[in-house]
């Protein structure tokens, strides 16, 4: 049976590597549409990681919202913008040396922070059950105020979109 857990671990590491490769693809590919597709693949990979961490509801919602919603929006934006068809994006410019120095500094800073932070896992969190029932009860019980505020924000966004997209009466 250790072979199975070894295979499972190997699979999880493979998924993580795939996410990193696709994320690299998002920022380095020339064709904008290919970048959007790599982003979709990276987000599906993230959902795979959630499944491996036994957060199945979160994985399904991640696919539903990100791949089904956000990526669709990104692709609509790419397709409906004129002059973007087939245009390639230049991958390097005259400010690359400065940018490399800045990113390296940023990586060193964040890396030090990550390594130096103690990350204890709250024992309560370890025992938490994340089933749909508990999530629903939490949303309607403990967290009902943020829930309602978010729904108001969403309605405001929808109404605002409709108002902006409406044609002028004249």
């Amino acid at each position, binding site marked *: 049976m250790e072979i*199975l857990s070894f*295979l499972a671990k190997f699979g999880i590491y493979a998924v993580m590597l795939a996410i990193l490769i696709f994320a690299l693809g998002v920022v380095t590919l020339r*064709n904008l549409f290919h970048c959007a*597709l790599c982003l*979709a693949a990276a987000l599906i990979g993230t959902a795979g990681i959630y499944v491996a961490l036994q957060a199945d509801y979160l994985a*399904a919602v991640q696919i*539903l919202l990100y791949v089904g919603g956000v990526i669709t929006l990104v692709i*609509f934006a790419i*397709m409906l913008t004129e002059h973007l068809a*087939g245009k390639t994006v230049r991958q390097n410019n005259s400010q690359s040396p400065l940018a490399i120095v800045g990113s390296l500094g940023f990586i060193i800073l964040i890396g030090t922070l990550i390594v130096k932070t103690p990350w204890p896992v709250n024992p309560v969190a370890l025992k938490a059950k994340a089933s749909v029932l508990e999530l629903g009860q939490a949303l309607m019980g403990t967290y009902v105020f943020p829930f309602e505020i978010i729904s108001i924000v969403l309605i405001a966004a929808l109404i605002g979109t409709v108002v902006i997209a409406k044609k002028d009466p004249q």
Partner: protein
Amino acid sequence: MQDLGASINMIFVTAKAWFLSLLGLFLPDWVIVLASIVVSGVVILCLGPVIMMYLTLLERKLIGRIQNRYGPNRVGIWGLLQPIADGIKMFTKEDIIPANADKIVHLLAPIVTVVPALMIFVVVPFGTQMTAVNLNIGLLYFIAVSSITILPIFMGSWASRNKYSLLGGMRTAAQMISYEIPMTLAVVPAIMMSQSLSTNTIVLSQAGSHGLNWFIFTPWGIVGFIVFFLCATAECNRPPFDLPEAESELVAGFHTEYSGMKFALFYMAEYMNAFTLCALAATLFLGGWQGPFLPSWVWFFGKTFILICVMIWFRGTFPRFRVDHLMAFAWKFLLPLTLINILITALCYFASPLVGWLLSLGILAVSFSILVKLNRTFVPEKRDYLFAD
């Protein structure tokens, strides 16, 4: 006798257990675990295309009979070998890629279409305890996976570098996104009443005295079933919602530039989607595998078969929707109807059956008539022709 009945009732599970016990004679334990996953996967991978092939034949025969002609009946008795001839044709056709096309995306689009269609088979309950994987979030998994199916349509239409494909792809994507929302909301009452997202539990909660307590015999069930079925027809791009792939409109829309095996994959994805959506409609509202006397999988396949025949009946009867009618129907009619459906589900949950029925029917009648009035299309007034007789 009881044992035989139970094993026939769960025939897929019994067959798999027998096969795995055969393997267990000479293979170590971890291989058995892996093999059980692989066997389920392989069976679904073989079942999907076979179902699709005979679904195409069934469609052609039924449409032929509706149109007063025989369907295909030359290849084999009753045309039963026709799908094999079709398969051979698709395999041996030349694969033409437009010169300017994006080769990688052009190749990937049909593959990415088929994979979600196959993935949905995993949560379909074929019989008593015969779901391939009994997920706790079965229905949410189905909704998430069917929302991935929009992506390859974009890929296919974009990669063809064809204005008309792009237009068809955009229309298809808009249609599928618009009809996903009423479909999801129409499923919510079934979730509310069975208090679980797992398809197996939803079917179990439709047992009654004889397995006849289906959700469709409730007010919210009827509305939910009709809305879900219409949205399912739209999600598969089946007539009357087949504007994106209509031959007379945009020369087959987003799959214009695909030939041979790639087109066969798109075609296969459409029919497998149709099958799984009918299977889910049967599970959620018609009681899945519940029913007296017969084995569970017989009931399940029978109900799915009837729903598929209704989809084919739609194809033979209706002309196509125009694209603005299509979108208006989804957003302005079906979406408010599903929201009201959720309201009456809650009413039926808390009130007694009689009061629940009366209130629901009242609310439905009022809201239905309001929605119809609001959606009335603009009819210009009659003109006066000065010189006509």
